[in-house]
């Protein structure tokens, strides 16, 4: 199976450092460095182990999901398709922009800062106030 490891833009890691670390730890999976992190291909247990090892470097800054196509697959590889953006990249790019926010929120959750925090619910406008607004707007 395939898995993507995405490094948050605010993390100090680079795909190269992550790749070397996984190789040092003896992860037996096919790895490909990309602009957003790594693409891994191998047995599912190996990939889960690789994710655990990767999170030793940065617990909150590495995000992961399963990936459909194997790395370098000629059916979707840009080299064989003659260019154009990678399929699914715009959505991944959109979510990568949000990762620093999620990373910080996860860190705060772990530290217990988010416990018991409820967003103040928006109440309905009382009828009296609504009437006053309407009278002001439409005398």
């Amino acid at each position, binding site marked *: 199976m395939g898995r993507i490891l995405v490094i948050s833009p605010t993390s100090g890691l680079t795909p190269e450092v992550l790749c070397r670390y996984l190789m040092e730890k003896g992860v037996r999976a096919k790895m490909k460095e990309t602009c957003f992190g790594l693409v891994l291909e191998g047995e599912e247990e190996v990939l889960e182990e690789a994710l655990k090892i990767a999170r030793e470097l940065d617990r909150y800054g590495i995000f992961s999901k*399963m990936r459909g196509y194997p790395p370098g697959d000629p059916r979707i590889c840009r080299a064989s398709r003659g260019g154009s953006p990678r399929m699914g990249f715009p959505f991944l790019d959109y979510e990568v922009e949000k990762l620093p926010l999620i990373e910080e929120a996860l860190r705060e959750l772990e530290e217990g800062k988010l416990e018991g925090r409820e967003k103040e619910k928006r109440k309905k406008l009382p009828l009296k106030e609504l009437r006053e607004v309407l009278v002001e707007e439409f005398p």
Partner: protein
Amino acid sequence: MKVFIFPPNSLILSDLVERFGHTPLSLGREIGERVRDPGLDNPPLNLTEEDLVRGLRYVSIEAPSGVRGRMGVLGPLVEQAEAAVVVKNPDYAFGCSGCARASLQVLYLLRRRGIPMLEVEYPSTKEEAREMVRRIAEFLRGLKG
């Protein structure tokens, strides 16, 4: 527990569901199984005729083939789901991961199943991100199984 995520290829939702100890029902795994299956005889497509036939369980024959094909993949995931985390109005669910009609059908099927479902929105500020993560964490920790 198996948790359906919507958009089904979301990195953030898939990661959060795994972090809190559940199994995300995501598109990556489904497509991965299909593209590694030698039965897929028509690359670069990632669907087989069986998927289109399976899609007929969820939409009528008059539905566009794109909707039918997507439902052939997503429909069985909805049936397996024991809970769901849904992002409301995600711009990118309209595009390579699905079309507006297929997304509506998926949400309709999820609501009809009556499983626990959490609706959140993509954050654009720190406060919204805290709210999103806190709600997802509470929801996923509260799921038994």
